């Protein structure tokens, strides 16, 4: 069996937000139960192997959280790759099925970024370390300032991406941020400054949450759900950095930009398709300016043409290649471990045709992209079988 013979049997998530009174295990159970129900009334007894993604909670948490769903003796493996964790857990589960070692595999992710911030993500962190003094917002702002210098990009264009994703999120009941009005460029620009030129509304919120996907051979998925489109895995490419001049070893790094281009290229080659075959894309828009870079790096327009693609409206719902239809990291949210599995949930929902007011018409192929600090990139392609 190859990766292409693997399909999504079930998918589910807990809406991201501030879940102050619920533990990681509580969130994991709710997401797991949702995915098992979507798979067709499964229990953990039907699952052969689980890959558990989280960034912060510490040792033993993968196995302990899985106990919430049952103690069946299944192999459980913790996966961590910073922001890309969820897509990497999905990749491992897909390959576990493709290799034949598991018939049904689960990828589940959770994190409580609010706890991380309370536990020392704020004041004083990094004070006695040479390697952790630069906030993620500052890191991506460095990209933004450089792009403004090279391409003449204006903050209004970053704000337009943020506004688009806020407005997409308002059409998604599972989005953390749900604006009660059409968010405007002016409003995004007027929100508090975070790191020049980025404002608070151009940045993802601090979130808690969980998400889960269950994978199985295509024929099994088809048999269990004869009346539902089968969503299969076309490709999942993962890479860490290739050394390039200008690599910074100290401080947070998510790059170089070519990492996203190379990873996407590998995914397209493995799938035997090109960007022209993709109907919607979800990307790592932790900060709005990133999305502009990924229009180019994922191959949806030429180098330096991202602003044109944006301003032609091609990346919003109704455009040629809608980006972050569920609100993206900016609106749907970004707890960490579950983020990639929330992207998978949105792709599955869209490819089944169940996305309601944000449905991409006749969506057949979807792309999910995440980068993670360190750094890594993961690009996954899903496809609706007809």
């Amino acid at each position: 069996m190859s990766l292409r013979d693997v399909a999504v049997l079930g998918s589910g998530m807990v809406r991201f937000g501030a879940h102050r009174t619920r533990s990681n295990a509580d969130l994991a159970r709710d997401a797991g139960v949702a995915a098992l129900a979507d798979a067709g009334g499964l229990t953990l007894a039907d699952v052969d192997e689980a890959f558990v993604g989280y960034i912060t909670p510490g040792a033993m948490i993968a196995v302990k959280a899985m106990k919430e769903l049952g103690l069946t003796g299944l192999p459980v493996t913790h996966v961590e790759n910073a922001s890309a964790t969820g897509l990497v857990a999905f990749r491992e589960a897909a390959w576990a099925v493709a290799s034949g070692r598991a018939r049904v595999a689960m990828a589940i992710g959770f994190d409580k970024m609010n706890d991380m911030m309370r536990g020392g993500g704020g004041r004083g962190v990094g004070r006695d370390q040479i390697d952790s003094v630069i906030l993620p917002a500052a890191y991506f702002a460095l990209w933004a300032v450089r792009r403004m210098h090279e391409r003449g990009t204006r903050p209004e264009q970053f704000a337009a991406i943020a506004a688009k994703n806020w407005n997409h999120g308002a059409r998604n009941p599972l989005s953390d941020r749900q604006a009660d009005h059409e968010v405007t460029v002016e409003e995004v620009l007027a929100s508090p400054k975070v790191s020049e030129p980025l404002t608070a509304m151009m940045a993802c919120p601090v979130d808690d949450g969980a998400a889960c996907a269950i994978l199985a051979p295509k024929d099994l998925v088809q048999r269990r759900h004869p009346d539902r489109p089968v969503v299969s895995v076309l490709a999942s490419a993962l890479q860490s950095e290739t050394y390039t001049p200008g690599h910074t070893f100290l401080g947070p790094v998510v790059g170089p930009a070519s990492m996203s281009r190379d990873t996407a290229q590998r995914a397209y080659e493995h799938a035997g398709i090109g960007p022209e075959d993709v109907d919607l894309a979800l990307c790592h828009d932790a900060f709005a300016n990133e999305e502009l870079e990924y229009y180019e790096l994922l191959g949806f327009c030429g180098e330096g043409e991202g602003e044109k693609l944006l301003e032609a409206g091609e990346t919003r719902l109704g455009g040629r290649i809608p980006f972050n239809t569920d609100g993206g990291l900016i609106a749907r949210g970004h707890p960490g471990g579950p983020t990639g599995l929330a992207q998978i949930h949105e792709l599955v929902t869209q490819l089944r045709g169940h996305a309601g007011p944000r449905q991409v018409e006749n969506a057949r192929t979807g792309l999910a992209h995440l980068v993670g600090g360190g750094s890594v990139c993961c690009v996954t392609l899903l496809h609706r079988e007809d």
Partner: protein
Amino acid sequence: MSEAPAQRVPIEPGFFAIPDDPEAAPRLLGSRCRDCGEVLFPRRAICARCLHPELEDVELGPRGTLYTWTWVHFPLFGTLRADAGGYGVGQIDLPEGPRVQAVLSGGQGDFRIGMDMVLELETLRENKQGQQVVIFRFAPLASA
């Protein structure tokens, strides 16, 4: 004879050299590959470009060019530089090759891409031995 200045110690050893003369510029501690010649910061045991295992120690800087920058609208480490309303962060290209990501000295309006920068030390605090704990920064050359 005047009183000897307080001894300065690095926040972490192995990243930068502190000159005895408090007026002298510090240097960064890097490596040069004995095979391909690539210069890297901080020090490494294996060349990141060609994987050759023999590198020699080199001192880098103190001058560089600002590749990109930002101004963070929060106090540094949640507590420092609150009066300035935030702090600068940048990437500095050293003439020897490496790009270094660092906190910048200076005010919000002081930075532009391509400007000359110079390495300096900032005292973070005094330790129990009465030594000054220092970290490296880059500052615009004119105001240094």
